């Protein structure tokens, strides 16, 4: 073992009421924020800017762009599956919590899904910040044990027993996302139209891409 000495744990004090109320949490964090602003550790404009980036600029529309390009450009798809970080960088996509990304491809025989059982690891540059359910105990606990049931009962996604479900537990600093299968009947759609069909859930592996609007006859 390379670690010869483990420091003693320094547990945080057990709060008197568990959990703290929303008012107590808000006040505690506001107090922490105020002190950090006074000390110059953080600023109000840094809060505003980061909030805006993840609200409007970095989100699943970027992953959708990557998926749509992979659906229409076989050479890009090959590069994406070989090195997702580099392929995404071609589209100007990458950064925090996606320094080393891996795309896993759904096929007729394998359905992929991602989870982080130990915390909340998620590929921010392509999917944005994770939804609460991804970070909450039910999904994290059950997804590695009974994924077929979770997909069916909790997400309405029925994966036939003939298809292997492969769950990627993001336990290290590699960040996974799913390359879903291109829906049928999309042969005539442009890359931009295809991107509209790619949902966040389809890139987590808990959903399928949307179906195109039926053509009017």
């Amino acid at each position, binding site marked *: *073992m*390379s*670690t010869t000495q*483990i420091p003693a744990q320094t547990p945080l004090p*057990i*709060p008197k009421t*568990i*959990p*703290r109320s929303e*008012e*107590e*949490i808000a*006040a*505690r*964090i506001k*107090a*922490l*924020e*105020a*002190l*950090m*602003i006074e000390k*110059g*550790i*953080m*600023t109000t*404009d840094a809060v505003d*800017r*980061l*909030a805006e*980036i993840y*609200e409007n600029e*970095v989100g699943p529309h970027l992953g959708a762009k990557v998926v749509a390009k992979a659906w229409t450009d076989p050479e890009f798809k090959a590069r994406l599956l070989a090195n997702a970080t580099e392929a995404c960088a071609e589209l100007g996509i990458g*950064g*925090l919590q*996606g*320094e080393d990304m891996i795309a896993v491809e759904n096929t007729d025989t394998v359905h992929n899904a991602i989870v982080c*059982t*130990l*915390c909340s690891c998620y590929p921010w540059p392509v999917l944005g*910040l994770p*939804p*609460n359910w991804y970070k*909450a*105990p*039910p*999904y994290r606990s*059950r997804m*590695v*044990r009974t994924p*077929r049931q979770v997909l069916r009962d*909790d997400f309405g996604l029925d994966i036939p027993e003939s*298809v*292997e479900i492969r*769950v990627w*537990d993001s*336990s*290290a*600093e*590699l960040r996974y996302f799913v390359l879903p299968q291109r829906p049928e009947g999309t042969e005539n759609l442009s890359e931009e139209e295809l991107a509209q069909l790619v949902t966040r859930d389809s890139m987590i592996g808990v959903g399928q891409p949307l179906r195109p609007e039926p053509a009017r006859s």
Partner: protein
Amino acid sequence: MNGVHDLGGTDGLGPVEVEKDEPVWHADWEKAAFTMFPTNSVKGYFGVDEFRYGIEQMHPAEYLLSPYYDHWAHTIEHYTVKAGAIDPEELDKRTKYYLENPDAPVPDRKDPELVSLMETIVHQGGSARRDSDRPAQFTVGDRVRIKENSPFGHTRRARYIRGKTGVIEAAHGTFVYPDSAGNGLGDDPQHVYTVLFRAADLWGQEEADPNQTVTFDVWEPYLERA
């Protein structure tokens, strides 16, 4: 540590609760807690592995019941107090003030350089890859077992894979080792591999889905040949 955060395979935690049209931010305090991560991280108060260890040391009941970004606030408070950047008494006093005056604003302060640094961090990130001369002991296709150790400090060796056997699916090169860095002991880069497990080898033949697999990324010291 064998903490409550290590949730893989735990039963009884209920259905997944999907919030329809969930917003990125549910409250302003979430934005503040989020911003504390990169801003305090560049100050050197914690690395990402230490950050996770701080969350793991929350009381288990509170960990399971509290909103997500409150976990971040806990670990950030833990490390900034430890670093002497935040005075706990001052924090208690200010918390009381905001409890009594919930609409009172935080001090206004702008710093274009910090905003620009945050934009750079968002767009460039910071890889946990580290060079190392250590030769890789394993290769793709090797059958490996996760050693049974249950370390007391920070580790990513989840309980549900300990003692289990799988096959190396991919080799990724050398990265910061959380069992060292998370415990404040330095990067100690180690080879990282993706190990593929059959569900039957994790949960037993009787319970497992016969057509399910799980992959888990491990650092080389977790592994032994099977």
